[in-house]
């Protein structure tokens, strides 16, 4: 099987479903990840991010649908997939009572890294994790950020073409998180495909593409730019001023306004065409004796986008139910 032709996606998921009894954890999910691509999984806790990753690692059996990893059907041949992937589970899963070097040697042995190459690989991993000269330290004595980088080092020791990282930055301080993402980018630049989940919405900015997952479904997918501009289905204006309540009611009736919501002590107004609305809205409000203190176009943060998308999704679901 040609598992690594450049044109083929490294991960191809098609209509994947996972049920636990009555509960649908993964609900008809489809996406693909190309060579050297960083795909981010974002979404609240319990959205199904970990479940999808575990299915792709062969740890859970899909209820329906298909998942190809390196061109191999995970459900049919999980062992062949396991040879080609590196995995960092959500819960830290290195041996805390072993030293840095002992952990690396262990995974080197498990992945059958040839003995003559092992010292060089271990050197690479310790340098990458910034743990050179701390090889003899017990893992339990390392701080969270170092532990996570060592876990990444163990996951890439056998040079897998595909990496699954399940919330690798959770509980890690911001600067260490930043460094961790730099590492992921270095690996991706070498052609490694990375599927990484996080519940820090801002980390979507570091991904080539991101999928927003809510209640088992992919509700948006695309590059950070695409998500920002298309996922909301319009452009965003910020309105500040007195009398926000009447302003909110008025704006909901205004032409060209798709949605309006309170955001802190201001209003976020979703419009089809920002240029036009900026011209027309002041007059529309003036007729109703409303004077916005400030009216301007804003570039929504990804967090705004996701909060909006998840709120929309919830509303849609409750209407459907």
């Amino acid at each position, binding site marked *: 099987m040609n598992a690594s032709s450049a044109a083929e996606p490294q991960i191809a998921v098609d209509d994947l479903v996972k049920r636990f009894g009555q509960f649908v954890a993964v609900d008809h999910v489809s996406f693909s990840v190309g060579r050297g691509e960083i795909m981010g999984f974002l979404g609240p806790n319990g959205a199904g991010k970990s479940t999808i990753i575990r299915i792709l690692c062969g740890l859970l059996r899909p209820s329906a649908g298909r998942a190809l990893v390196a061109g191999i059907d995970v459900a049919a041949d999980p062992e062949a997939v396991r040879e080609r992937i590196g995995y960092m589970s959500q819960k830290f899963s*290195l*041996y805390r009572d*072993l030293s840095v070097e002992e952990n690396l040697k262990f995974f080197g042995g498990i992945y059958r890294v040839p003995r003559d190459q092992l010292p060089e690989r271990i050197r690479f991993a310790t340098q990458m994790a910034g743990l050179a000269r701390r090889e003899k330290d017990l893992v339990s004595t390392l701080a969270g950020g170092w532990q996570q980088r060592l876990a990444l080092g163990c996951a890439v020791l056998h040079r897998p073409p595909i990496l699954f990282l399940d919330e690798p930055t959770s509980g890690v301080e911001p600067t260490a998180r930043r460094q961790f993402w730099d590492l992921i980018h270095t690996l991706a630049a070498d052609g490694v495909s990375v599927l990484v989940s996080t519940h820090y919405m801002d980390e979507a900015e570091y991904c080539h593409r991101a999928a927003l997952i809510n209640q088992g479904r992919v509700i948006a997918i695309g590059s950070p730019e695409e998500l920002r501009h298309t996922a909301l289905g319009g452009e965003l204006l910020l309105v500040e001023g007195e009398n926000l309540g009447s302003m909110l009611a008025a704006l909901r009736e205004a032409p060209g306004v798709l949605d309006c919501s309170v955001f802190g002590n201001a209003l976020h107004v979703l419009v089809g065409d920002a240029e036009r609305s900026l011209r027309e809205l002041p007059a529309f409000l003036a007729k109703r004796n409303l004077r916005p203190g400030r009216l301007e176009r804003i570039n929504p943060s990804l967090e705004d986008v996701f909060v909006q998308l998840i709120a929309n999704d919830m509303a849609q679901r409750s209407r459907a139910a």
Partner: protein
Amino acid sequence: MNLHRVTAIAVKEVLQVWRDPRSLMIALLLPFTQMFLFGYGVNLDLQHLPVCTFDREGSQLSQDLFKHFQASPYFAIARNVTSYADVVAAIDHGTCNFAIVVPPDFSERLNDTGTASVQAIIDATDDNTANIAYGYAAAVVEGYSSDVTVSWMNRQGKPLQQTQPMVTQSRVWFNEDLESRNFIIPGLVAMILALVGAQLTSLTISREWERGTMELLVSTPVQPSEVMFGKLAPYLILGWVDAAFCLALAALWFGVPYRGTLFALFVTTSLFLIVVLGIGYLMSVVIRSQVGASQIALLVTMLPTTLLSGYIFPIDQMPKAIQTITYLIYSRYYVSIVKDLFLKGSSLAALSTPILFLVVYAAAVLILAARAFRKRLD
């Protein structure tokens, strides 16, 4: 199966055991305390049973009878009382388990009729001890009675040639001194190895599930049999250390004679260790919690080994149905092997049947454990 992976797992396991005081305590301290506790505690021999005497006559003859009891290694006269109430009190308080009451007309009847009786009162709360004590007491009285007969005949001027038409000359083989310790200690070694072996391995897989390290391990291409052999190997070595320690204590400290070859002991002990380590490992794979797995391992090793292996309670004295069940108890085979090796010095060939059973058992446990290991979380 890949040796590279098995070695990686074995090395990791050795490091973890070495750094885990709890595992080392189980492995090294438990056999030591158990050997001494049970080695001294479990003793089925009757020795120096405390006896209470009530001499209602106070004659030369009655005192002679007591001297016979005092001379016997099985009895020791603890109290001499002067009323029945005191006899009852001594037995009630447990200061004596046995009482002899000599009637006031003891000498008179003996001289007149040639026969007299004494009363023995036995505390049969422990029926086994009571039975044995009764047997020994009867023997003591009989010995005294024949002395009396001889001296009576002599006094009558009829020197007696004691003749008996038939005599049993019995010779005891293998456990010549009929010491229960020689019979119990080899079985005790089997019990300790079963207990310790299964305890050690019952923690290995469940610990990885509890600490979350298993999720990563099963995401690698490692095979269930590689995990199993890698994990069992270090414990087999620990098991050998324990076995050598217990067997040496049995032979050198407790003085149980060892008559077999060391090679036969090594082969059969290794087989037994594989069975018990495999059982602990199987529990660990199936139960996935350290407390649960070690409790169940304790239950499936200690209980059947104590009750059904023939370690203390002889199998051929059990009801037929229970005897059939004992064929399922793996320790039954090792208990019989190790007793035979110690006391009879049996050859491997003579032990081929129990060895074969152990081989089958070991194979079955290992195959089951390898198959029970799932590389999935659901």
